Structures are given as C-alpha cells and as structure tokens.
C-alpha cells in the first residue's frame, strides 16, 4: 500500500456514512477525545500556571522548577499509562494522570520563563505607580508574559490532543479507538482515518490559539513571539 492508496483508503473511511453515527461514530469519539484532553489540560493548567507565576515572580526555586519539568518531559507517557492501569484498573484516571504529566512541563516552564523575563524597568514602573507584589504580577508581569504563557499552553494542548489516543489502551474511548482497534484488526483505513482526525484536531487547536492570542495579548506586545 503506497501513499496514494493510504490517502484514498482514509478518504473512503472518513466519508463512509456508517462511521458518522452511534457510539463508535466519529462525532461521539471526537467529543470523548476532546473531553479527556480538555480535562487533563485544565487540571495541568490549574497546577502549573500559578506555580510558574509564583516562582517567576519571586525568583525562588527556578532551578528546581526547570529541572523538575525536564525530568517530567522524559517520563514515557505510554509507560506511565500502563503502570497506572496495572496498579489501579482500567478507566479515566489512568488516562488523565499521564496526560497531566505530559501537559505540565511546557506550561510550567513557559510561564516561569515568561514572568522571569519581564523587563525590570516595567516592574519598577508598576511599583512606582503604587502597585504591590500581587498587583505587579497581575497587571504588569502576566500581561507582558502572556505570549509565552499562551505558547506553553498551546504546546501542551497539541501534545495532549495527539497523545490522548492512548486512552484506547486504558479501555476507554476517544479517537485512539480507531487507531488501536484498527491496528489489532489490521484495518489500516481505520488507522489512517483516525490519525487524520487527530491531526485535524491538532490543527484546529493551533488555529484556536491564534485566536486566543489575538484576544488576550495586548496590542502593544504583538509580534514579540518567541519559541521555547
């Protein structure tokens, strides 16, 4: 099967009406996939955003945070998933835990680096205007660091959406079902079709973050994008 055959097979699979309804239908699996991804991303953000902001603001524990994040990046997601499944049981928890571990490092590091990198003059100006620590953080540092914070969230979101396919290994749904079940049935159109859906989802996430950037980043800061 060469590339053209793969594309044709995926197209036929995607456009078959039987694949668009029921509990194994694309809309249902897509919602499941988005659900796991969003849950993991929100939990990771709730932990990592305040932690990164605090460490960046106080300047204390930065080395620890970056080292921890690098270590967490090295943890193999599949191994963590299978470990948690083996120790506990099949279900939502074993899926969410590795996805949170995957999402936290980019959010944490980018938030920390973003806040830490805010120009000292800006902080001085904020203090000169009478702001105290929290005010400086909320009104000056976070808005200035916003492009980098969003970049961290975007990286995390894309990784989570692509990796949530492993949910199928914990016996629950999501787009990974098409890939994993297709693999075991040697049903390659299903594998390629499922993969195409995940890629589309990742592209949609990218576009959504471009919109979010427009909405959240102060006009004065646009164009100052850095990669991590």
């Amino acid at each position, binding site marked *: *099967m*060469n590339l053209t055959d*793969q594309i044709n097979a995926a197209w036929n699979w995607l456009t078959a009406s039987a694949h668009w309804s029921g509990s194994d239908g694309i809309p249902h699996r897509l919602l499941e996939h988005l659900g796991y991804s969003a849950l993991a991303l929100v939990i990771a953000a709730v932990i990592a955003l305040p932690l990164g902001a605090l460490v960046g603001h106080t300047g204390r524990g930065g080395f620890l945070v970056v080292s921890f994040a*690098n*270590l967490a*990046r*090295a*943890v*193999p*997601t*599949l*191994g*963590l998933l*299978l*470990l948690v*499944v*083996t*120790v*506990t049981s099949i279900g939502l928890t074993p899926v969410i835990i590795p996805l949170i571990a995957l999402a936290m490092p980019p959010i944490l590091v980018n938030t920390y680096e973003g806040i830490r990198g805010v120009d000292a003059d800006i902080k001085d100006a904020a203090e000169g205007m009478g702001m105290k620590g929290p005010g400086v953080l909320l009104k000056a540092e976070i808005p200035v660091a916003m492009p980098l914070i969003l970049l961290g969230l975007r990286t995390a979101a*894309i990784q989570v*959406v*692509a*990796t949530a*396919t492993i949910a199928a290994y914990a016996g629950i749904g999501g787009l*990974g079902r098409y*890939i994993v079940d297709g*693999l075991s049935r040697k049903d*390659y159109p299903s*594998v*390629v079709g*499922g*993969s195409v859906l*995940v*890629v589309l*989802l*990742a*592209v949609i*996430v*990218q576009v959504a973050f471009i919109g979010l950037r427009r909405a959240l980043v102060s006009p004065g800061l646009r164009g100052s994008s*850095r*990669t*991590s």
Partner: protein
Amino acid sequence: MSVLAADGEPLIRWNWIGDHSDELTTLTLHHLKLALLPILFGLIVAIPLGIMCVRWRWLYPPTLGVANVFYGIPSLALFMLFIPYFGIGSGGQADFTIILPLTLFSLSVLVPNVVDGLRSVPEPVRQAATAMGFGTLRRLVQVELPIAVPVIIAGARVAAVASISLVSVGVLIGNGGLGQLFIDGYSRDFTTPIIVSCVLIIVLALFSDGVLVTAQRLLTPWARTRRSNG
C-alpha cells in the same frame, strides 16, 4: 520495597533486574540508537533548512506550518505511515519505520531553534565580520553558526528528551526499545518491568541531556569566561 500494589505484589521485585541484565543492556542500546539517530538526522536537515529560512524569509512560515502539523500527528500514526516502506519488527531496515518519523518530529523543534539562533546574531557582529573581509559562507560557518550554537543545542535537548520518550511507543508496532518491557509487564500484570524501563528511559534522557550540555560548553568556550546562566 515497602510499597505494595493492591493484591500484595510488590511494585518492584529487585532480583528481576539482576536476572535480566543482558536483556536490559540490549534493549537500552537499541533504544538509544532508535532515539538518537533521529536527532542526528534532524540536525543534518534542520541546519541547512534553517539557514535557507533565514536567507529567504518567505520560506519560513510555510516550513514552520508543515513542521507544526508533524508535531500534531500521534507518533503511533506516523509510525504506521512508514510500515509499508520499511516493514515491521526490530532491527535492520525496519528500524527506519521508527527513526524516520522521529526525525520528522525532531524537525518541528530543531528548525525554529536554528532560525531563532541565527536571527539572534547581533547585526554589529555580522557587520564586523563583513568588515574583516568574511564572505557570506565563511561568515556563516565561523561567526553566525557558532553564536547560534546555544539556541540550536537548546532545541536538540528538547528534541532528544522527547525522542527518547517517544521511541517506547514503537513497541505497539513491535519495535520500541525499552518500551518492549511496558507490554511484557502489562500483559502479565507485573509492574517491575514497567517501572524499570520507565526509570531507564528517564536515565537515558538525563544522560543525553548531560552529553548535549557538555557539547555546548565545548563548542562555546567564550561563554565560560563570563558568568552566564546558559
């Protein structure tokens, strides 16, 4: 180990490690090969590509777009795409089913970093090099690329750690280095191999990271003379 799983089985049986040291060594070496060749290939592609993207600015947005799309593909799916060309299994040609997709993943980190690194070269430095009679090529090789090294290596570190972790997914198509032990453990409800391979993968990542940091220090001797948090 005092921590027990629910059914009273210890999380780790230490004697298993000694009994399987040969297998662990083989899998570790194979894992390193599958994970680090992509970084090497990635650098070989990303450096010229990044140079071109800096020189012809219009080339960068589409290149970045394609690289970002690769980043969003589940690794398993990308492995599948290469099975028809290199086959399935471990060793020989089939290794490329893992190595080439990981090379594509590494590009999504390496290309932006090469571009950012080259763009971070201060204009006065460039002008000074030109004033000293450096041609474009010599200026690139002797001035711009060395200054870009820290940013390029920062990208290589992220790519290497990600690659070492992602190789293990290859086990689902029969070639995942240490990931093999995930499935061995999972199918027998036995946590020791899963934990051991996770720890070995983390150790490999830290080791490669250390090697890259050392490489950066050797390649940028001037950075050592002043204090930097590089």
